[in-house]
């Protein structure tokens, strides 16, 4: 009974998501709304602004560097939390 409810729930969820996918624009076109002026600005002036040939590195370490700083802080916090939970007392 529990399994049946789980499978039914997953079926409903996936069908709702597939209806959502049906209305998306076509895959792999250049005029999709995803490729707006933000990405074009990064592609056009990324090398001149940051000096990095890899534009993804230029975004994560120059334009959005404090985002990456928060991510490093999250990693540090996770390490400290695992240290608190898992360190043995007797040593």
């Amino acid at each position, binding site marked *: 009974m529990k399994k049946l409810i789980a499978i039914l729930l997953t079926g409903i969820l996936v069908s709702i998501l597939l209806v959502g996918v049906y209305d998306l624009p076509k895959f792999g076109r250049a005029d999709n709304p995803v490729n707006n002026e933000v990405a074009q600005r990064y592609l056009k002036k990324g090398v001149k602004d940051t000096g990095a*040939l890899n534009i993804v590195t230029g975004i994560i*370490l*120059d334009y959005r*560097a404090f985002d*990456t700083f928060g991510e490093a802080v999250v990693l*540090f916090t996770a*390490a400290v939390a695992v*240290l608190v939970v898992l360190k043995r007392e007797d040593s």
Partner: protein
Amino acid sequence: MKNTILKEVSKIVIPFIQIFSIYIIFHGHLSPGGGFAGGTIFGASLILYRIVYGKGDAQKKISYKRLMHLMCISLIFYGVLKGYGFITGGSYIDLFEIPLGTPGRILSGGYILPLNIAVGIVVAMVMYLFFTLFYEGEV
């Protein structure tokens, strides 16, 4: 572990893994890679050392104190350096600023190379810490 073959082979393999990871970190702004991938590979080399040589030898090389010092210093270094870069970039304050250099050289890109090194150190140490805590329960 008392396996002689494993020790001799890992003595040859570990420097190559570390040089490959340093290559990935230092070429992060020229080719695919960067701090996260290179730091993870460096952490994998430390994990291999810990598995093969055991707790005693590894604690001499990478003690708990040294590991925490490296992590905290690189995190603070990241914050201070990028904060300084945000203050000087595009403002009218005449402070010293690292030049961008010609794109394509290793020593170029302003603050990207030291930031990549800081992120790589943090990621490598965090991966080593995860592994030792899950493996033996102590660093």
